[in-house]
Every structure is written in structure tokens, then in C-alpha cells.
């Protein structure tokens, strides 16, 4: 069984937010008004944060793209009372909207702020946008045909693409990757199997210095960052 993981090369990331946009398009994540964004009500499955160190004029800004870390020891899975959040066998942490009762305990428990609460029903036309790619059938069935407010949402590593790709016998990590990896203009994101010693991410992790975020909590996250 593979164990899917992601490597983000901070040296290559330019902070263009293409991953955030690609994620919103692929998963039809509702977009919010500036007011909602300021109040932290907008749903983000992937975010890019800017972290500064030092004082002007000696400032260093680092741009950290943050999808869900898909931790092996996921605090959200531990606290979910209804098994709405669970770890698939391939290590992806998914959220089942049909089981979720909206208690928001997982948002409190997540140390990465990767989870968002869907707090309002979107307009029908916003959900079924005309500008979606017409050939989305190649990526498999979209996993969220109906969506309701009142549940918690999060990044899924685009598991619908992975499942479809495996069914068609495609190579995951090369031919089939999550939307954010596919759309990254600088190739800063690499997706693959952490347990496969021949995969690209395994060789990257063996040859470069890497960190994981909030290592002190020992969540064993599967998103690795290559340092500058």
C-alpha cells in the first residue's frame, strides 16, 4: 500500500498562489468576499502564508504553501466523534461530509489551521460554475456532488484523481498528481509515494535538507519542506 506524501521546495516557490487557485477550481471550493476573508470565514483548502524575520531593511520573507499535512498521527482523526474524519489506508486524511455533524472540534485540534467550516450556503451558480474545465471526467468523478453548509472541509490530496489514476493504471506522481502540484508554475511541489524508495520524493528527501512544520507536536506530517 502506498503512503502518499508531498514535498514542497521552498527554494522554488515564488508565492504566486497558483496552488490556492488551482485547488479552489479543482474542488469547487467556494470563494468569499473580502469581508469574509478578513473575518476568516472563507474556505481555504490550501493557503500560502508569508513569514518575515528580521527588521527593515534586513528582512527575509519566506512563503510557505500549506495544504493539509495529512499527518500520520492526525489530531483531527483522534478528536472526531463520528469518524467523519479518518485516515485512509494510503495515508490520506479525508473528511466525509455525510458523517460530519459540524462540532468543529477538529478545527480546534488541528495545529496547522488546515480546516475550514462551511458557514453559508453558496449561490447555486457559484457552485456550478460555467468556467469549470469541460473535460473534468478525465480526472474521475468529482467527490463532492452536493455540498452543504454546516460541515468542516479540508484538503484531500485530490484523492479522486489518485483513485481514478490507479484504476486506469497510470503512474501516480508522474502522470497523475493533485491539482496544486499540476498547476505549480515552478515545479516546487512534488507528489509521490513516501514508501517507494524509487520515487522522486524519496530521492529528494534523501539528498536535501528538509523540515516538517510543528515537529514539536509529533504529528508525523506527510508534507515535507525542502529548505532554501
Amino acid at each position, binding site marked *: 500500500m502506498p503512503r502518499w506524501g508531498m514535498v514542497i521546495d521552498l527554494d522554488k516557490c515564488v508565492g504566486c498562489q497558483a496552488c490556492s487557485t488551482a485547488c479552489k477550481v479543482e474542488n469547487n471550493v467556494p470563494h468569499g468576499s473580502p469581508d469574509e476573508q478578513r473575518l476568516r*470565514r472563507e474556505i481555504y483548502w490550501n493557503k500560502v502564508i508569508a513569514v518575515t524575520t528580521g527588521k527593515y531593511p534586513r528582512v527575509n520573507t519566506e512563503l510557505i504553501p500549506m495544504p493539509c499535512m495529512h499527518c500520520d498521527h492526525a489530531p483531527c482523526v483522534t478528536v472526531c466523534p463520528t*469518524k467523519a474524519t479518518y485516515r485512509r489506508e494510503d495515508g490520506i486524511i479525508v473528511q466525509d461530509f455525510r458523517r460530519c455533524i459540524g462540532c468543529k472540534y477538529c478545527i480546534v485540534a488541528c495545529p496547522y489551521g488546515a480546516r475550514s467550516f462551511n458557514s453559508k450556503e453558496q449561490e447555486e451558480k457559484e457552485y456550478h460554475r460555467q468556467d469549470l474545465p469541460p473535460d473534468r471526467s478525465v480526472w474521475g468523478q468529482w467527490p463532492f456532488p452536493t455540498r452543504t453548509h454546516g460541515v468542516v472541509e479540508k484538503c484531500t490530496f485530490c484523492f479522486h484523481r489518485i483513485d481514478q489514476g490507479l484504476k486506469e493504471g497510470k503512474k501516480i506522481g508522474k502522470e497523475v498528481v493533485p491539482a496544486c502540484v499540476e498547476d505549480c508554475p515552478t515545479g516546487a511541489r512534488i507528489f509521490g509515494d513516501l514508501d517507494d524508495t524509487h520515487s522522486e520524493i524519496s530521492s529528494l528527501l534523501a539528498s536535501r535538507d528538509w523540515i516538517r512544520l510543528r515537529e514539536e507536536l509529533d504529528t508525523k506530517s506527510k508534507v515535507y519542506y525542502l529548505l532554501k
Partner: protein
Amino acid sequence: MGLTFSKIEGKSRDFYILLIVLAVFTLIGFICFMVSYITGHHVLGTNNIIPWGMPIIITIYLIGLSAGSLILSSLTYVFGKEEYRPIARLAVFLAIILIFGAMIGIAMDLGRPEKSWRLFMFFVLNNMRSMFAVNGILYGGYFLIGIVYLGVIFAEKYKFIRMMGMLAVFWAALVHMGTGAIFGFIAARPIFFSPIKPFEFLAAAMVSGLALLMIAVVAIFKFTKRNFNKTIIFSLGKLLLTLIIVLVVMVLVDKLTHLYSPDREPMVWLLTGPYSWVFWGLQVGLAYILPILLLAHPRYSKNIRGVMVAAFLVVIGIFGERFALVIPGTAYPLPFYPGKIEGIWGAAGSFPITPVESFMSIGIFTLMGLFLLLGLKNLELLPVDEKGEQTPAPSEKK
């Protein structure tokens, strides 16, 4: 044991006016709940950084009041302190109403309350590692135990009362420690994360439950023109003082531990940040310092008004304590990466008070008030005032 209990008349004009006012506010609260349920939680003050708002604050507050009230009923039924018998039935009844209000609060907080049956599918569809699921067992059991307990008290089966009383006290302590564990076990939130949280919650529960019980007793006895023995209130005041000091020690230990370790930024933020007024003003000021001064004062502690003011301050202050836990605990920004996180991702959360949420919260309280009035009218909760002197017989020990 020669004490008999009765219903209240409940036929005066004031009674009906009060009933109607409470019913109207309950209805408004219900409408506001339906608004938030149908249109989504964007009408509330919560957001993705402060996911828990007023309903959860009220819920843990009410669970505390309930557990405290039930534990105090055991003074009579388990430990045999006869002087408290006149108020013991009321204590059990209050506990049941309060836990019911707390359940309503949880339902209001859920995004999908129609699926809340999933919380009670223990060991089948539930993840029993979740403190929420464990607390589902505790709350459900507590509600049932409370009702059976009240039932055997009404039936006056003394053997069962003592047994149920012991079970109820044990369970009530578990319930509130479980509630504390919901917060105390979350490692990602430094203000929550503390092994002493369950015990702190238990102490806060006893303090607030006792204070509420004292207020309820004095108010109801005054309103129904019953005489009462003031010495019970004074001795309960002494107990309250002791419990407040226990609570202060617990809170002090918790905060000092967090301040002592190098990772003290979140606790410093709580004590000096934008929500520090809740902590210092409501929690420390109203719940600890003023009541301790009043209850330790030689004159005010022997004055019914002084004790009542202290109890009232405690009830308000413990609400502040819950607020100062839930809101700042989640509002403190998560340190994703060393350095200063710019923009909204590094900013502390803000919690606007919205009308819908406020009316929802008021609705929970008025619903409980409604149940209390109906209970007083239909159940034999209050002692009979036989000679028009004092209902609780003066205790011999004092």
C-alpha cells in the same frame, strides 16, 4: 424527616406574566436558532479561527452549574446533613434543567444538528478516542441518572435515594471532568492544554453550582413568601468560600505552569492581550477576589445580602472564566512557522457579538427558566411552610 414538600400555587398574575415573558424570549431564541441553522453559521460570531462561540461557552457553564448543583444535593442524601434537606430536591431538579439547557446549547453549536444522533452511536459509528464521544456517554447517562434520582426522591425510597445519590455524585464529577478534558487534551492550543483542566473544571463547577443554588433558594423562597433558615445560607457561604479558594489554587497552578515554561507567549497574551479584561475583570475580579473579600468579611458574611451579592458575583464571574477559556484559547494565532506570520494567517481572531447569537443564548436561559417555573408548579419541590415560621428546622449541631 418530618418535612413535607409541596407545589407552588402558580395562579397569580405575576406568575403568568413571568411565564409569558420567558416563553416569548424562548420563541425568539428558537427563531434565531432556525435562522442560523437554515442560512448557515455566518450569522454567528464564530469563524475558522474561533470555531466555538457563545453556545459552547454557555454549554460548559451550564454543565458546571448542573454538576455542582447535583453534587451539593448529596450533602443531604449521601452525607446525611439534615439541615440542607429543604433545598435538596430543588438542587436535583435544577441539575436536570441545567443539563438539558446544556444539551440545547450543544445542539445549537452543531453545524448539522439533525445528525446529532451520530454522537450517540457508541462503539458502532463513533470514534471512542474522541473526548466528545466519551462525553456523549457521560452526558446521556447523567441525564438519565438525574431523572431516576429525582424519581426515587419523590417516591421517598430512602435506600435507593442514597444509592442513586452516590452514583449521581460520582457521575456528576466525571461529567465535568470529561468536559474539562475536551479542552485540556488539545495539544495544539497552548492555553487549553493542561492536565489540571479537568480538576479545575470540577472546582469551578462546584463553585458556580453552589452559588447558583444559593441564589435560586433565596429567590424562590422570598418570591413564594416562605420563611427560610438563614443559617443554611451562611454555612453554604462558608462552603462557597472554601471552594473558591480551591479553585483559585487550581487556576494559579495552571497559569503559573504555563508562565514558567519557555513557551510562555500564549499565556502572556491571555494575561495582557485583547481579552485580558475578561480574565482579570470577570474571572479574577468577580469570581475570585470580590466574593472572597465579601465571604471572609466578618460582617458581610453574616448578612444575607452580602452573601447573595457574593454568590451573584461568582455566577457572573464563572461565566467570564468560561469565556476567558474558550475565546482567547482559540483566538491565539497558531505558530505555523518560526517568524512573524503576516496578514490574516498570523492575526489573532476576533469574536464579534452578533444579535442572532445573543438572542439564541438568551433563549437557552429563558427556556430553562420556563422549565423551572413549570417544575415548581407541577412537582413537589419546595418544603411546606407549616407554622409560617421557618421551613427548614434549625439544625441542632450549630
